[in-house]
């Protein structure tokens, strides 16, 4: 059984069947990509996975526990971290403070009234945050205002903030959308490195085929709200249905 199990999920918005009978199993410690043309239901599926939308039918189990109806902070405390399409960081805070917050959350839980302690005396937290920034090559920027960074660096910081909590599952929603090529490649390298170094499952929803085929070990193709095929990148590349539904002629040319 996979770490994340989606069973018979249906979701309807009025007359539109956004998700129809979705079954999906994400293996522990794999990199699993979910791709599909616009309107295939990728975002809806992601919102179901993180508890933002409750499906009409079906179940979503993370490590044999249902995620449905839970609040985002509860899902995060279960061990699922999410990276957003536009990087969501604490723009008013410094890079180091950004990194400290998830470490506090991991240590102290969803709420703790630590109003009379001093942040400056939290040597353990600061040390962990600096080590994380070091591994992201961002140590020099630790006192910078995080809102002033480039998009690529914001993405790097956001991924680092997720990793600082040692999640078991990292969900990425189009992590390279709107990025320059160099930043995209940096992000791919970072994700590869994370996958090599850690026991972590990565689920990635992506448009950019370059990203998908450089990272994914397994790919699910979604079309019109339902999984069309699932398999290894090579299998997906060669699959006639996928080529027809999604990849178009360029992929045919590439594999030939």
């Amino acid at each position, binding site marked *: 059984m996979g770490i994340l199990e989606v069973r018979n999920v249906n979701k309807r918005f009025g007359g539109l069947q956004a998700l129809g009978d979705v079954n999906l199993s994400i293996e522990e410690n794999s990199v699993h990509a979910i791709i599909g043309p616009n309107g295939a239901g990728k975002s809806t599926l992601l919102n179901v996975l993180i508890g933002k939308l409750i499906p009409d039918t079906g179940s979503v189990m993370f490590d044999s526990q249902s995620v449905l109806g839970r609040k985002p902070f509860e899902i995060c405390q279960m061990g699922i971290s999410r990276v957003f399409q536009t990087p969501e960081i604490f723009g*008013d805070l410094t890079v180091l403070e950004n990194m400290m917050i998830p470490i506090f959350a991991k240590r102290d839980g*969803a709420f703790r009234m630590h*109003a009379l302690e001093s942040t400056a005396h939290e040597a353990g937290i600061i040390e962990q945050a600096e080590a994380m920034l070091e591994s992201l090559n961002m140590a020099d920027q630790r006192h910078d205002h995080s809102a002033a960074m480039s998009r690529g660096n914001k993405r790097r910081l*956001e991924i680092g903030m997720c990793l600082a*909590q040692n999640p078991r599952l990292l969900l990425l929603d189009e992590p390279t959308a709107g990025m320059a090529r160099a930043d995209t490649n940096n992000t791919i390298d970072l994700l590869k490195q994370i996958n090599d170094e850690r026991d972590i499952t990565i689920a990635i929803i992506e448009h950019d085929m370059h990203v998908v085929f450089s990272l994914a070990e397994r790919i699910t193709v979604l079309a019109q709200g339902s999984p069309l095929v699932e398999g290894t990148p090579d299998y997906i590349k060669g699959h006639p249905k996928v080529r027809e539904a999604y990849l178009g002629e360029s992929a045919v040319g590439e594999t030939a």
Partner: protein
Amino acid sequence: MFGLGKHDLKILIIVAILALLAPFILNPFPADSAMAQFNAGYPDLMQRFAIYGIFAIGFNILFGLTGYLSFGHAAFLGVGSYAAVWMFKLLSMNVLPAILLSVIVAGLFALLIGFISLRRSGIYFSILTLAFAQMSFNLAYSVLTPLTNGETGLQVYNDDPQILMGPNSSTVTNLFGLEMRSTYTLHIGSWNFDFAVGYYLCALIMLAMFYLSIRIFRSPFGMMLRAVKSNQTRMNYTGLNARPYTLAAFVISGMYAGLAGGLLASMDPLAGAERMQWTASGEVVLMTILGGAGTLIGPVLGSGFIKYFENIFSKINENVLHEWFSFLPQGLENIMVWMVSPFVGSGWHLTLGMLFMLIVIFLPGGLVQGGQKIMHLFRRDRPEDDKPGAARQSTPAE
């Protein structure tokens, strides 16, 4: 020292010096000079500086850190005042139980209002708090007359129980016999400096509250509150529950307001419904923004600034203006008086409004930003000094 960084300690010491030497600092002009009306060093006004300083410091913990703009904080001030006067009526004129109860009652009241209002954010939160405050005002004014004495306001009467009163107990507000109104006046030349017990009690409590607010600002809890303001989505997906953090900030700032209300009643044992009116809630918003929201010292400066204007500028009437401009020829004197008079006396709001606009437009960071700009001008001569400044740029400043 005190668990503060060097920078914060410096700010605390500056505020402590300002507060403790206020009778001197605010009385720069000799008592018989024409400028004496600009002296603010009389106990009544200094007490208000300290009390409204506490109110604004507390408001800043909510608004400055979390960004939740409450438009109903005067309700907590009013509730605190009523609670304090009830203590005077039931127990004795000792201010200690009065102040304690005002903080507790305001905290409970803030818990209730915050629990409901914090279900929404942004403008909806502001409107909800405003609605609650106006409801409280109207309740205090009419429906709850047995508790609040309605229009007349709550005060202490001779036939009140006052069960802790002995035959020799003081009949004015006191702290274990030390009367709030007792004042020592120091005469030096033609200067008079007043040292009142009431003022020093308020000032010491204000300093303690200021210290507490620095600790909150620099704590992990304070960092979480800034995270709420910065990005609630990321906060939720980082496994943090924003609601109890904002509620805690709301209750803390409500307790500060209750403390201010209790102190107001301790200086003058009266509580009226008008203390809860929306204009009073708006005033603390102005104080905080004027001084610099989210900064440590800003609310103290802002409240001092506004209270100074309210009490000093409002006293300047046409007679005073005629005196000022008497050196001019008669016609010119009248023209000058006619031009200036709308801005002083009962028109002091006009001056305050214009200053507020100027500050918000040119110094969105409030008076603190103005101070920083001036400091920066001086520092430009010494470029080496820029580096530590740059490193600190994004910590919430002084």
